[in-house]
């Protein structure tokens, strides 16, 4: 009993956690249903999450991101591969020994306990002495700005406040890694904005290695130090959010990130030339075999220009304040594209305009792999 409380009281009032990196090596999770049908939820997933960083695990629902999180937590056992916290191989360690804090999607606050009791609960298991535990709980509550709500029950709190309690409960035992499962999905739009900044702040103050799962690109891009994009259990790309947006490795990542979404235009490469469906040669000098491709053009990469090669006819004009969004059809094809241009008034529906572009991605039609 004394041992544990000594360890904690020896470094008092410090919310700074020992930061460790988290390494996932060839992590695979296969679920076998009763019918014998096998599903590979996570497929040979390797990633190194640097110590003290906030990492967003991003992907569409069913891509295996939550499964990955639960494997890091130890609530799911990997089929193959290993998990390291620092030099510690935790692959076969039960969750309670890993030193993680986990915030569930619906927070899983004990409804019959007050906020204080909820936050103190993990300390009870560590046999921390009661006054000490109460002090630590209060500190944590102050950190997440709910210090004045300690005697309320969870159902007397708003969603955002419950979220903070859940974070405080996860952090109070000073875990090595903080895991958040869809932390903002249960909040309304305004709270979401507020809470995501709050998570960022708490993470900065505590310097704890934090991994959170989300399907919301904006959420991931706005607060993560780095994002990991996943699809169908496979790691697609990991980098700084802006870098992933600017240089997606494949068509999935390009399409998944960005709002409004990227324009995808069918085209082909023939004799080193990039040719649109209407026969217009867009660019030259491709050193690949002839094949069908998709062109990726982000709406903001397009510029109206008299001698632009992309000839279009306007279908719809939306004024969205600072900018104008134009939806138009490439002449001679059925392909609609979206462009965001600085606000212009002298445009009309059915008018023909041409675009140039500042940047272009070219993807293989079959594999989605990016050439340029």
């Amino acid at each position, binding site marked *: 009993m004394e041992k544990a409380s000594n360890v904690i009281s020896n470094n008092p009032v410090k919310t700074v956690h020992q930061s460790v990196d988290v390494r996932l090596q060839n992590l695979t999770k296969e679920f076998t249903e009763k019918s014998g049908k096998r599903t590979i939820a996570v497929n040979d997933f390797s990633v190194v999450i640097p110590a003290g960083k906030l990492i967003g695990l991003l992907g569409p629902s069913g891509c295996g991101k939550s499964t990955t999180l639960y494997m890091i937590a130890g609530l799911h056992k990997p089929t193959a591969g290993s998990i390291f916290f620092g030099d510690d191989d935790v692959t076969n360690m039960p969750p*309670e020994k890993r030193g993680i*804090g*986990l915030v*569930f999607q*619906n927070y*899983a606050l*004990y409804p*019959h306990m007050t906020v204080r009791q909820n936050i103190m609960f993990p300390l009870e*298991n560590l046999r921390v002495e009661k006054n000490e535990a109460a002090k630590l709980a209060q500190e944590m509550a102050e950190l997440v700005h709910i210090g004045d709500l300690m005697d309320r029950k969870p159902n007397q709190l708003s969603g955002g406040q419950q979220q903070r309690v859940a974070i405080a409960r996860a952090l109070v*035992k000073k875990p090595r890694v903080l895991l958040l499962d869809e932390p903002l999905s249960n909040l309304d739009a305004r709270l979401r904005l507020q809470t995501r900044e709050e998570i960022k702040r708490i993470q900065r103050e505590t310097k704890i290695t934090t991994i959170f799962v989300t399907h919301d690109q904006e959420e991931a891009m706005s607060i993560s130090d780095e994002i990991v994009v996943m699809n169908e259990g496979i790691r697609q790309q990991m980098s700084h959010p802006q870098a992933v947006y600017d240089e997606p490795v494949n068509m999935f990542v390009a399409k998944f990130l960005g709002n409004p979404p990227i324009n995808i235009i069918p085209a082909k490469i023939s004799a080193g030339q990039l040719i649109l469906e209407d026969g217009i040669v867009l660019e030259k000098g491709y050193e690949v075999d002839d094949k069908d491709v998709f062109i990726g053009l982000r709406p903001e990469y397009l510029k109206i220009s008299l001698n632009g090669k992309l000839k279009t006819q306007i279908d719809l004009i939306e004024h969205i304040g600072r900018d104008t969004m134009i939806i138009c059809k490439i002449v001679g094809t059925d392909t609609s594209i979206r462009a965001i241009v600085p606000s212009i008034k002298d445009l009309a529906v059915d008018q023909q305009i041409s675009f140039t572009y500042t940047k272009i991605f070219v993807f293989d039609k079959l594999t989605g792999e990016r050439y340029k």
Partner: protein
Amino acid sequence: MLEYKRDGWKAALCLAPMLLMMTVFTFWPIVNSLIMAFLEDYSFGGMQSHLYARVLGGGTYNGIGFKNFIQVFNEADFWTALKNTSVMVFISVPVTVILALAIAVGLNSTKKMQGFFQTVFFLPYVTNTIALGLVFGSVFHIEYGLINKLFGTQGLSWINQGATWWRAMFVLMVYTVWNGLAFKIIVFLSGMQSIDKQYYQAAQVDATPRWRVFKRITVPLLSPMILYITITSFIGAFKAYSSVIAVFGTGAYGPAGNEKMMITIVGYIYDKMWQSGTPYGVGAAGSLILFIIILIITIAQLQVSKKRVHY
């Protein structure tokens, strides 16, 4: 909302059959016995009718007062019944509830064979009380009973002639617990299965020992059901009657030679209602006393539960 309010007569129509039945078979008898309890030497029928007796359909009495209650309190049978019933209630109910909770926890934590065990533990519930009593009667039989054979105690009387009060009570207790277990297990189990798994995962991540998970998470989240089961069990146990009849199989409340040894309050009331020479009011007074005992116990439970039940 207003549209629905105008449909009040439809609701009344739907409820009418049930209300009618309740009035005839529940409310009216309650009012009757309430009046009867205070009529001294009330006798049904006859040529003339006294004032309050007219409410009951006629009859005569010699006054209004507590004579019936005084008679009840002066009868040894009543005190035996009260003792027997209380012992059954205060031992069998806690034992059943705790046992049911333990079995439900066990069932809930086994993935394999859960359906099988669920069926097994539910079997006593679908078994007829008297049939179950017959089984107990033969298992505890003095000569060819399984228990006596198993422990080599042939000749030891549990429920037959010469049985001691404690042995008979033991059999009765085992029977009551067994009989009540199934329903409670099912209620607790379904309650446990509706508790969000994430509470347990959260507890696991926080290295919560099993016992504390049970004490701090399962029990509080199950507390409304525990309260419901406890209160209904107490009421049910106070009304014990058929269990005694079923176990002894003598048609009385005890083994041959001591037919009233295990009499219960309901048994006592039943006897008084049919005993020739005893006014009806005595049985009515007995049931009023039972009602008040149950009322007090239930109110006490609700009071205690206010702090401990989390909805």
